[in-house]
């Protein structure tokens, strides 16, 4: 089997005998999980995140409903589980954080660790802003009536606010009261003080949970990983008792097998599996490195994958019962409005036209008085149109779902429960993200040794909070969408691919990885694992990456903006990105991706210089690979570029 030359590997890793001794004597300073449950809950919490709730249901519904399960499950088995098992196994074996793991496997592969860290950092920045939004809605749920259930009145109490009147109370509350969004990305709009407070509270909660690393995180996950399931169950029971929920479920799960022929379905399924498992962030490698050496990582990988898939389907079911309810409410309101108009125009007694005989009545009235009926401009009411308004992402949580909640009795209670669930889902994912930042920072020895864990996590959280202020300005939502599309997509695919190739071909599958697994779990991984690790999974990742890359490059760069002046208001307007955005996009997607080859080239140059210098002096041999000074300089330059572009645009 192909194996790339990798000299000096044995000196960098602990042998099996040494690992056994470490395990028995319980020596070593590496932190440990208190029990298996903490580890499982942390990994489940990291994998199960907001994407399961607001991305998967949308994909499921738009790609043929029940038929989407087929590509999703196939790719889960062929791509998700092998990659997950790989990350768990390599972390458990090498007992190092994501940065050190790659430095150990081969110093030229350190770029993979750097890329993971950069991506984790960029994702942490904007992900916590979403949690801040969730907190804002949570804080605002403690009042009756909910602030997004009705439009505010205008100055002379003669009508409602214009912007709200033209769109809807939920839209107005989201775009105006929460984001106070500007019309385009060029206008910053200044910091929104209420969102700054929410951002500070989000980072403060994260800090209190991560203050001592897994010692505190391990306790927090007992709540953050289990509460979402409790709330989802409550919502399922509540949702099924609402009118119209079944039509939502039927709409979601009705299979359309023609979608299977569409390559976009398979691509989206593959991408969803990959991102849903939070692979290539480095967090999972860190978490499994705190395990005991003989932990059964194979079993863990399979169990967590099953739980993740189950949660996606479960969440989709719950979401669509509520969406079905909302769509039915909207349909009833639409029809009710039409019926009232007809009754008023023709002075017919109430109850003459009902939902059941609406079509017949309309026909007969149209036959007798066609001009009057035409002048009424009756709306067409179609249930399917309302169901397809399901949307995804923040639109689903903060617009569609909040509207549905206002129509339920005891609305504040459901609102509180819903946003607590979203908060827990987001926070447990943030634990993994921040782990993917903190552990490499410690490995790189950026901070002085005298600093405690509390100080390091405190400074990191504080810095991230300050940089995250970008996202709480008026134009913050546009920045967030930018970060989401570019920082959290292409670099992850590259890193994931390199991880697989690195472990299989650089670390070595035959003599090393298989032996390691025999040592750790007692048996050699079977033909399924061999086939997927060596060929199938890397191939799938490569295909997904190429398609993603091609579609991103070829599509026009525009963003959708909330512009009350636009003609199509309240539909969001497509605007092209300004030219300086390309610098930002390069920093977001390019720098982490280029770190992979970049670090290898850097190392090559350093070795060459060392070779020349070794003849002159002996002292140079002990310079660290990538000193903290270099790293500080590079990061300083990067951030100066970001801020100067932002200031001088």
């Amino acid at each position, binding site marked *: 089997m192909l194996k790339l030359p990798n000299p000096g590997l044995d000196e960098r890793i602990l042998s099996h005998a040494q690992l056994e001794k470490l395990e028995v004597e319980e020596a070593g300073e590496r932190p440990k999980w208190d029990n298996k449950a903490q580890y499982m809950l942390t990994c489940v919490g990291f994998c199960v995140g907001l994407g399961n709730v607001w991305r998967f249901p949308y994909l499921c519904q738009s790609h043929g409903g029940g038929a989407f399960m087929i590509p999703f499950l196939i790719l889960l088995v062929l791509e998700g589980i092998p990659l997950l098992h790989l990350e768990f196994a390599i972390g458990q074996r090498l007992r190092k954080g994501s940065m050190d793991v790659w430095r150990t496997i081969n110093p030229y592969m350190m770029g993979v660790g750097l890329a993971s860290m950069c991506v984790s950092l960029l994702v942490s920045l904007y992900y916590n802003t979403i949690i801040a939004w969730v907190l804002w809605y949570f804080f605002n749920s403690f009042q009756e009536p909910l602030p997004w259930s009705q439009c505010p009145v205008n100055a002379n109490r003669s009508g409602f606010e214009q912007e709200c009147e033209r769109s809807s109370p939920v839209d107005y509350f989201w775009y105006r009261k929460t984001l106070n969004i500007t019309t385009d990305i060029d206008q910053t709009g200044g910091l929104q003080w209420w969102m700054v407070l929410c951002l500070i509270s989000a980072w403060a909660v994260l800090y209190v949970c991560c203050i001592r690393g897994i010692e505190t995180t391990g306790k927090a996950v007992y709540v953050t990983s289990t509460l979402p399931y409790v709330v989802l169950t409550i919502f399922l029971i509540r949702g099924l008792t609402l009118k119209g929920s079944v039509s939502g479920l039927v709409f979601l799960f009705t299979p359309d097998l023609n979608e299977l022929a569409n390559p976009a379905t398979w691509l989206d399924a593959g991408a969803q599996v990959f991102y849903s498992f939070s692979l290539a962030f480095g967090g999972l490698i860190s978490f499994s490195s705190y395990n005991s050496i003989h932990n059964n990582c194979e079993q863990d990988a399979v169990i967590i994958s099953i739980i993740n898939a189950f949660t996606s389907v479960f969440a989709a079911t719950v979401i669509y019962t509520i969406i079905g309810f909302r769509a039915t409410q909207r349909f009833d309101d639409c029809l009710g409005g039409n019926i009232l108009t007809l009754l008023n125009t023709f002075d017919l007694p*109430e109850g003459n036209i009902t939902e059941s005989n609406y079509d017949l009545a309309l026909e007969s009235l149209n036959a007798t008085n066609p001009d009057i009926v035409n002048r009424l401009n009756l709306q067409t009411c179609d249930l399917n149109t309302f169901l397809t308004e399901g949307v995804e992402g923040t639109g689903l949580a903060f617009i569609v779902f909040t509207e549905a909640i206002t129509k339920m009795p005891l609305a504040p209670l459901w609102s509180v429960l819903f946003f607590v669930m979203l908060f827990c889902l987001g926070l447990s994912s943030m634990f993994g993200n921040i782990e993917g930042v903190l552990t490499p920072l410690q490995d790189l020895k950026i901070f002085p040794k005298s600093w405690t864990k509390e100080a390091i996590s405190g400074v990191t959280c504080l810095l991230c909070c300050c940089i995250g202020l970008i996202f709480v300005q008026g134009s913050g939502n546009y920045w967030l969408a930018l970060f989401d599309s570019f920082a959290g997509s292409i670099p992850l695919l590259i890193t994931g691919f390199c991880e697989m190739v690195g472990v299989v071909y650089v670390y070595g599958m035959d003599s090393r990885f298989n032996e390691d697994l025999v040592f750790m779990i007692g048996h050699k991984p079977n033909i399924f694992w061999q086939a997927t690790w060596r060929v199938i999974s890397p191939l799938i990742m490569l295909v997904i990456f190429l398609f993603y890359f091609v579609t991103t490059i070829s599509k026009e760069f525009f963003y959708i903006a909330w512009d009350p002046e636009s003609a199509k208001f309240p539909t969001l307007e497509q605007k092209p990105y300004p030219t300086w955005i390309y610098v930002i996009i390069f920093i977001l997607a390019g720098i982490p991706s280029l770190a992979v080859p970049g670090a290898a080239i850097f190392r090559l140059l350093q070795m060459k210089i060392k070779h020349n210098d070794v003849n002159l002096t002996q002292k140079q041999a002990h310079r660290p690979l990538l000193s903290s000074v270099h790293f500080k300089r590079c990061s300083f330059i990067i951030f100066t570029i970001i801020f100067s572009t932002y200031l001088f645009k």
Partner: protein
Amino acid sequence: MWTVWTVWMVWMVCLVPTTSEALCTEDDGYKVRLSIKTALGGDAYEWNESEMFFFKATLAFAMRTYSGGEQYDVSNILVCDETLRVSFVFVVTKPSNTSELVPRTEVENAIKKSRHRINSAFLLTDQTLDFVGINPTLAAPIQYDTPPWLIAFGVVMGLVCAGIVALLVSTFLNKKRSKKSADEEEAGRGNGILCESIRGKDGLFNQGLVDDDRLTKL
């Protein structure tokens, strides 16, 4: 003479209704629509003569309240164009002169002032008791001294800060405690052997030899 008088009476009797009908037009009055079944569902009452009388009385009450005591009566409220929808047009005549109408604006202001009482009398709302052309004044928005969200924010931040302080303090205390015990160990160290371990053991038990035993097992 007597027949002339009878003919004149009959003519007057026939004319008065037509005069009042002539007064009652939608341009001079307001159209009202009631949606009783929508509002009350199963508890809906039947719209009949008595309900109409009640409505006229309510309107007269509204006019009296607005005008500050002018003696409006049920007979001052003229109703026409009744339909099965339960909609009709009404006008208000002046109590002093029944052939003169009260201006529309006055009627509108009177209804706006007593709108809530009129709605409650009929167990209806602004939407189900519709005066076409009179828009309901919207309820004043609820004003809070402190916005509720700030209170929730304060509670959460208070708990979080308390947690952070508690954890930092406990770390600091642990450090001090471990430093103190390390200092005590330092004080007792002679030639690498802890005093505590040999205290009370007749000085024969040497820790340094224990590990060797493990290796020399044959």
